[in-house]
């Protein structure tokens, strides 16, 4: 008589779950929800404070003036904003071509031992603490130039950009269908032309995403700038809009110690003056605005950009 045995097995299987197991289930769901709430609290608190304190502290002087002597109120971070922009441009000019180039190598020529070695190295570099990169930029650039400079800061940040950009570029190029390359070869187009105007072009939006992510990551970096760009209370170059600008030829001051937004935030936040605290919040707000804008741009590009089989 097989009927009863099946029946008990089925009954056991579908029998209402014991209350203990059911309670555990509910409790664990509750715990999971709780963790989400606990994680979102700091996020909300940080953005809340940034907006509340940042917008309140932001004013025209902050954007157009340079710091005033310690203890006085007023002044702003104009030189730090320009300095940050300069350092980021230097970093991008060095880091982006190398990053994309390395990515192209990995995707198109890197199916070998050297390729794997480079891939592994890029991943390792990604995990190196930024302050260590700062030491290296100090040793290479600052020691040979004999003084701190925007260039040294740019080199440090460029080193941080390359691994991210090269890995995302590689991933994006590999997504481009092989048939597209073959079609180009079939038309007699040389390999370099195919890579640049067919493969890379098809993957443009993905590559840009990688670049922007790397940019967003380095834009707020402070540690590698501490002993490379160092910071500066004044303008570091003679620019058309600053007091150094008279009848002399203008210079960017790339070889001079340069102020940067993150450095200034660090310095002001740890200072004892209330007015500087206020400016630190304003600086943080400007910085986060810069980063959120670039991250949003990334998401926009990603959503709009569809290519190949991806």
């Amino acid at each position, binding site marked *: 008589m097989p009927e009863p045995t099946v029946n008990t097995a089925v009954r056991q299987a*579908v029998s209402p779950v014991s209350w203990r197991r059911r309670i555990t289930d509910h409790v664990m769901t509750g715990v999971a929800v709780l963790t989400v709430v606990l*994680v979102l609290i700091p996020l909300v608190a940080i953005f809340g404070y940034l907006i509340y304190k940042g917008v309140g502290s932001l004013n025209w002087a902050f954007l157009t003036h340079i710091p005033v002597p310690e203890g006085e109120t007023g002044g702003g971070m104009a030189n730090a904003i320009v300095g940050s922009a300069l350092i980021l441009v230097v970093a991008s000019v060095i880091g982006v071509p190398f990053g994309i180039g390395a990515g192209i190598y990995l995707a198109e020529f890197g199916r070998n031992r050297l390729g794997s070695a480079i891939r592994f190295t890029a991943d390792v570099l990604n995990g190196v603490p930024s302050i260590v990169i700062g030491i290296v930029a100090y040793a290479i650039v600052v020691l040979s130039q004999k003084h701190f400079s925007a260039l040294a800061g740019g080199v440090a940040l460029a080193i941080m950009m390359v*691994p991210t950009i090269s890995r995302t570029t590689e991933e994006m190029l*590999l997504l481009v269908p092989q048939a597209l390359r073959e079609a180009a070869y079939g038309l007699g187009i040389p390999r370099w032309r195919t890579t640049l105007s067919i493969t890379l072009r098809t993957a443009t939006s993905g590559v840009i995403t990688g670049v922007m992510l790397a940019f967003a990551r380095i834009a707020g970096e402070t540690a590698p700038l501490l002993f490379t760009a160092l910071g500066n209370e004044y303008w570091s170059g003679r620019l058309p809009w600053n007091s150094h600008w008279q009848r002399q030829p203008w210079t960017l001051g790339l070889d001079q110690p340069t102020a940067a937004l993150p450095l200034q935030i660090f310095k002001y936040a740890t200072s004892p003056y209330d007015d500087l605290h206020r400016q630190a919040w304003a600086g943080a707000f400007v910085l986060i605005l810069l980063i959120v804008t670039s991250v949003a741009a990334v998401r926009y590009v990603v959503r709009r950009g569809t290519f190949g089989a991806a």
Partner: protein
Amino acid sequence: MPGPQPVEGTKVTSTSADRATPLLQTSGGEVPDRVFKSAMTVCGLAVLGVLVLIVYELMSGSRLSWHAFGFKFFGGSDWDPVNERFGALPFIYGTLVSSLVALIIAVPLSVGVAVFTTEMCPKALRGPLSFFVELLAAIPSVIYGLWAIFVLVPLLSGYVQPFLAKTLGWTGLFEGPPYGIGMLAAGIILAIMIVPIISSITREVLMVVPQHQREGVLALGATRWEMIRVGVLRNARAGIVGGIILGLGRALGETMAVTMVIGNRPEIAKSLFAPGYTMASVLANEFSEATGDVYLSSLIEIGLALFLVTIIVNALAQLLVWTVTRGQPARGHA
């Protein structure tokens, strides 16, 4: 590729690409091609070069300190720039303890968030939720520090630390004056910073657990939590540990936020309320002002130690995550 000819796959197509090259030689495509390939190779080699450069600069920079102190450098606990006596133990201790505190707080939170987003929450909430958590990763370290100084630290000294001292003071971990600034604050801010890393990797790992694994456990009559515990978490264990170690790697090297709240005193204290110092923050604070070759060299040696530790930790993590997500087409490595 819905081509008419039944070709065997990518292997053949790549050789056909190679075969196309000789044809191009006649049309003068060879030289630019070679130039292009060398240029790209140079870019790739630059990545290797940077790593070699880092190792070389750190080693040559720390030679002086290595000759002066040897292995005792890592066991010594005085930090006396005036008499040029340097020991890195307080910094190593501070780095380890602050990272450990961060992990203790961050791991349950991150795993909880990952489980919730992959297994429990409605599909519509999934995207926004992970976006918000990842937004935490986009905030620069210095802004975490700023927030910690003006919001977290007062909160700790006003409410949390007196409470901890009263309830758990007997353990010796929570005693002393509640300044707010100190090891505990550093650990908490680090925890907030590594949650997005651990949770995003955990989520990635949970998502590669095959769906029939879940269905199988549910079909046996398990509740949802039992399904998650037995069918999902147990399968993803190695990957989750990898994510945790990756978070640890980040916490060890984190500089600015920690420097701003840890108190920066090279002391070894049992209480988490006491100020401390980490390897990264001593570099941040003292590197540009280091006078004397041995002083600078000692700092670089700390940098070298930090570099080696983070590399080992990261390699381990990569390996663990890789063992779980291997063979997944979702990662884009065709």
